[in-house]
């Protein structure tokens, strides 16, 4: 061992061994890394180039990590201090200019190459396409609302419906704090910032229902600020939009009877539980009758027990008027007086009063 330690001529042998170990370990590592199913299901055209970029990054990264660990482990294995070497010093190697130039230049070239590739991908996924549909996304504590253009008006929905293979341009806005519109299946994400419009593009290419997630901490209900995106056939989308249009007319206070009659009577329980409605009470509140168990807001079975209709109405319209013990003002959205129709509001109040008696 000591003899080997003294000899500098063994360097090529060590390097050859290391290279062999490194290549085998890298190959194994790359195979393993590529076998992992990293991403959620891909449902937009933007996903493929990003996933490919990811795979390329993995293929480049694994050998770098293998290089570091292999040299560390090999050195420890080979040159660990043995008994009797307590006072021995290593060879006084101070550096090697050629080696240092190589390990400065090579990573630099590699990184610039990766950046160029990433730039190309970025350009690709953000390119404006013909026949793009516009959707306005509005975030507020703690719900998403999606607005579709319909003639001169806008139709609002709490669920996002998109037609298959049609490019979509989302304009993202916020009513209060920062939110972040993220559809993991599309690989797109952008903050919603009050005061400015941000935007993002996606072209859905797979039928199905996928989560819409708020990715920017926005307060107490942040974890519950989720919605769904439904990618459907174009004709289904048109039908849905038609239903939304008639629903909006039915719900409109001065709608004058409405046309389709899709929502002739208001089902307050559905209103309470379903996030597709203007409210999503159940995502924050617990209510035994509706079977919800949200913890962001107070337990309605307790705080509304025996309360008057007027009190319940006030609590919906002006949530900050009375704050339950242990909760903070300003968490519950303060716009339900506007977003709920009078019929919906009174149905909700009646329902809540009944089930919390």
């Amino acid at each position, binding site marked *: 061992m000591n003899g080997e330690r003294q000899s500098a001529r063994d360097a090529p042998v060590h390097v050859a061994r290391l290279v062999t170990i490194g290549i085998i370990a890298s190959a194994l590592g790359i195979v393993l890394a590529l076998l*992992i199913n990293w991403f959620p299901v891909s449902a937009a055209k933007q996903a493929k180039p990003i996933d490919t970029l990811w795979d390329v*990054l993995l293929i480049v990264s694994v050998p770098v990590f293998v290089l570091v660990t292999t040299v560390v482990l090999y050195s420890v294995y080979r*040159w660990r201090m043995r008994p009797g070497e307590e006072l021995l010093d290593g*060879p006084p190697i101070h550096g090697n200019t050629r080696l240092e130039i190589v390990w400065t230049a090579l990573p630099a070239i590699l990184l610039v190459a990766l950046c160029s590739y990433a730039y190309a991908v970025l350009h690709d996924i953000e390119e404006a396409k013909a026949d793009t549909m516009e959707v306005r996304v509005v975030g507020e504590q703690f719900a998403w609302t999606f607005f579709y253009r319909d003639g001169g008006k806008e139709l609002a929905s709490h669920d996002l419906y998109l037609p298959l293979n049609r490019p979509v341009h989302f304009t993202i806005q916020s009513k209060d704090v920062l939110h972040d519109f993220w559809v993991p299946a599309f*690989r797109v994400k952008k903050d919603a910032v009050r*005061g400015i419009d941000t935007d993002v593009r996606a072209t859905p290419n797979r039928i199905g229902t996928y989560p819409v997630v708020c990715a920017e901490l926005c307060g107490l209900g942040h974890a519950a600020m989720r919605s769904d995106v439904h990618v459907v056939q174009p004709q289904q989308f048109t039908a849905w939009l038609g239903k939304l249009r008639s629903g909006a007319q039915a719900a409109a206070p001065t709608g004058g009877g409405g046309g389709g009659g899709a929502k002739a009577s208001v089902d307050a329980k559905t209103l309470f539980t379903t996030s597709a409605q203007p409210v999503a009470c159940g995502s924050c509140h617990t209510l035994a009758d509706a079977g919800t168990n949200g913890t962001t807001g107070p337990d309605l079975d307790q705080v509304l027990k025996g309360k008057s209709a007027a009190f319940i109405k006030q609590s919906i319209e002006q949530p900050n008027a009375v704050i339950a013990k242990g909760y903070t003002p300003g968490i519950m959205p303060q716009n339900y007086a506007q977003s709920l129709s009078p019929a919906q509001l009174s149905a909700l109040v009646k329902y809540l009063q009944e089930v919390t008696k």
Partner: protein
Amino acid sequence: MTATAQHSPASSHRSPSPTGGSRSRFRSPGHVRALLFLVLGVLFAAALVIAVRALYGFPIAADGKVTTATQDGILLVSLIAAPLFWLVGLGAFDYWFYWAAGRKTRPEDHSSHGAHSWRDYLRVNTDHKVIGIQYVCTSFIFMLIGGMLAMVIRAELAAPGRQFVDASAYNGLFSVHASLMIFLFIIPIFAGLANYVLPLMIGAPDMAFPRLNALSFWMLPIAGTMMVASFLAPGGSFATGWTAYAPLSTDAPIGQMFFTIGVQFAGASSIATALNFLVTIITMRAPGMSFWRMPLLVWANFSTSLLVVIATPFIAASQFLVLLDYALGFNFFVPEKGGDILMYQHVFWFYSHPAVYIMMLPGFGIVSEVLSVKSRKPIFGYRMMAFSLLAIVLLGFTVWAHHMFVSGMQGWIRVPMMITTAIIAVPTGIKIFSWLATLWRGVIHLDTPMLFALGFLCMFSLGGISGVMLAMVPVDIHVSDTYFIVAHIHYVLFGGSLFTIFAGVYYWFPKMTGRMFDDRLGKLHFWLTFVAFNATFAPMHLIGVEGMPRRVSDYPEQFAGWNLFISLASFVLGLSTLVFLYNMITSWRGGPRAPANPWRSLTMEWQVSSPPPIFNFDKVPTVVGGPYEYGVPDAQHGIFTAPASEESKSSHPSREARA
């Protein structure tokens, strides 16, 4: 606990109270007077707020009760005023006040130098060795608190739905956890280790400004106490993450201000220490200690201090903007009134990205020391190691907006920021490769400090690699604000910074305490930490890419399996800290006596006794060679020839540097 006792001069140096008698306890500096002043500070705040409110005609009391606005106002002003009063009471400003008032300053008897019993560590002390130990111990206390918060976080996340805490408390937990770990642990503990070691390494008797050094330290417990105490605030602790993004932070309950103001104290402490290091390094090097003979730890702290001095004022600014918006309605972040929400993020990250290097460069320095000594070889490419530190300082200021790729800022900024972010991996790569080459054909002593240094090399590389992946804008768009980020930051700050901290604490433990630690327990600590660390944080990469956002108290069922695994691993990680604590405490109390230079190191802190004499060097050292000349026959770094004269010993420490 009797660290420097055997080297202390006669006990007549113990601080005598100027007037004597118990009556003066309220007048002489110390904790009694500090407490008195603390109360005065709160009263001052109350008087100020009530006076101003009365002046403006705002209600002070209603229904026989003080209004909430008045209470919050008093609390807020107290947060600013009471700590300053407390510092005055403690005596941190006494000398300067005497001097400024033209009164007779106390003769320089060095009574506040050195520690003679454990009590001296609880007093204002100007000895850099005492301050170093104060820093290290205080930081570890806050690390334990922060770690326990992490345990609660993982307990809550062990299963979907609500386990132990509600959403409000949960948001507070991760916010306080991150703030403590960053501002009260990693940043100050590096300052503490350097405080102890750096003057010794460059052959100086102390830091350039010992009183400023003491003041820097005493601002830390203020910041930490404030952040921990925020849990008691009405409305709960600050719950907007350590990033405190506006407008969530400007609209939050009063607990937010405990962060906003706490950070000011931590930042001021940081800036003062950095100035101290810069002046010490530039002006107080021993004869012959040219810049190119400085150990890399000194280089690392030189670079870090540059970063701190330039960058830290920016986080101070960002928090002042939040404070003014919150308390006085300045509308910096109210777009309807001409405010700009994105501006907060730019100002914040202009500090907080360099802060990542503030939390890493000193660790690079520690690893350079440990690897060279424990491989018995010179550092490979010493000058490139120093230059790469400076390159990181420079590039560190050009990458901040990579935290904002999805923030909605102008799209074009993303591309230059992507390139600079990728390029900063080049100097970092130079360091990694140079360390590997240092190992090559060395005589590797695989003890605890070395294990942590090698663990750092592997884990930090992984963190660096995920960093390069994050630099790539399209990938970053998908994984921003997910658990992938949580994994990355912990590989960099735990696998990176914390591993170097452990390496450094073990490495200098004999010097700081005069005792040897138990190497077998140290190795057990390393392996427990290493395995549990990877089991905890590696799976976070997976669930992040799969779609789990960070900062959520609840998550969909699909992530339940990994989260349970992560939580269990994190509890083992928490327990591994107990091994470390046990080792440190028992070794300090009763470990075998440490020789002056147990590692056969060349750098100068090891050429004096363990622990060092009260003024570090009884003989003035002269530096005649590089610090890492292992394997070079008869190589010397510092030589001690001329005995220091009595005169220079009693002169002011900061003046005798060039003596």
